[in-house]
């Protein structure tokens, strides 16, 4: 439980600091152009890594199960430009349906 509260406190401070950093920096001088080239790519790199590990990893094993089916359903919803709410509901329904029939 100590680890939980340390995580909450640490992440709270880190998140506030990260969100405050942009407005604080802009008051001074701009970051070098190349820094933005890297920072702007952090989100796609991390989101992809999270999607794949949340969907395919069980601890250190890689497996394909109903989560992958749910993600495929979400992919269809995203391709059809569905709102975020619809996308997550479709993914849950897809994964739940796959588990119900297997």
């Amino acid at each position, binding site marked *: 439980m100590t680890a939980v509260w340390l995580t909450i406190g640490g*992440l709270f401070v880190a998140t506030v600091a990260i969100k405050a950093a942009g407005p604080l920096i802009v008051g001074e001088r701009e970051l070098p152009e190349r820094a933005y080239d890297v920072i702007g790519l952090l989100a796609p790199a991390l989101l992809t890594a999270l999607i794949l590990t949340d969907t395919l990893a069980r601890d250190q094993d890689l497996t394909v199960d109903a989560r992958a089916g749910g993600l495929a359903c979400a992919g269809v919803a995203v391709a059809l430009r569905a709102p975020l709410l619809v996308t997550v509901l479709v993914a849950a329904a897809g994964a739940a349906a796959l588990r*119900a029939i297997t």
Partner: protein
Amino acid sequence: MTTTEEGELPGEAERREADRRERFRAGLRAGLGFGAAAFVVGISFGVVSEPLMGSFAPVVMSALVFAGASQFGSTSVLLSGGSAVTAVATGAMLNARFLPMGVAAAPALRGSRWRRALEGQAVVDASWALAARGKRGFDRELLMGGTLPQYPGWVLGTLIGVIFGGALGNPEDLGLDAIFPAFFLGLLASELRRPHAVPTVIAGGAIALALTPVLPPGLPVLLASGAALIGLRR
């Protein structure tokens, strides 16, 4: 709102104020949809985190951190046996995108530098994306209006999740474990509209999958952020 700036026609300040309120309301309307999504994802966060954290800590976390991806990311590190340091580092890296987002928003925010740092806390993915599309550069009113419904949606959803998680049954039977990758995919889709992100997506995914069998959970995701260094090649 009675002061009139020099050189302005009479009524100009009132018109600008009315326009500002209209854009705030437009943000609120869009934000209600975002808030509904945040509510559902918040429920799944409550359900998933309750066995690890109990019923109080997840609500505190949502109220303080208010950043879904990093909460799910750090919680899954803890759930899989990772340390608090790894969990915070993973969560912080997942929030690193708020830095360039904050830089983009900063000129449109108001007041002193510290006041703008406070207003910058309103930056969350969906409303940032909405506000960045504004006609006049970044739109502060769309950001604020878009974020306002998401905060109660996220915190209340978490509360409902931890209270009724048991009654809802096994989160996996409901497919709730598929919700967060789907939510991330929805966010990634808007990133992929920038074609130069594609090599990073491929490299980040490859790093995460290649390292999953050999490193403790959490570290593959953290190290996948190295794929962003592709940006140096441009």
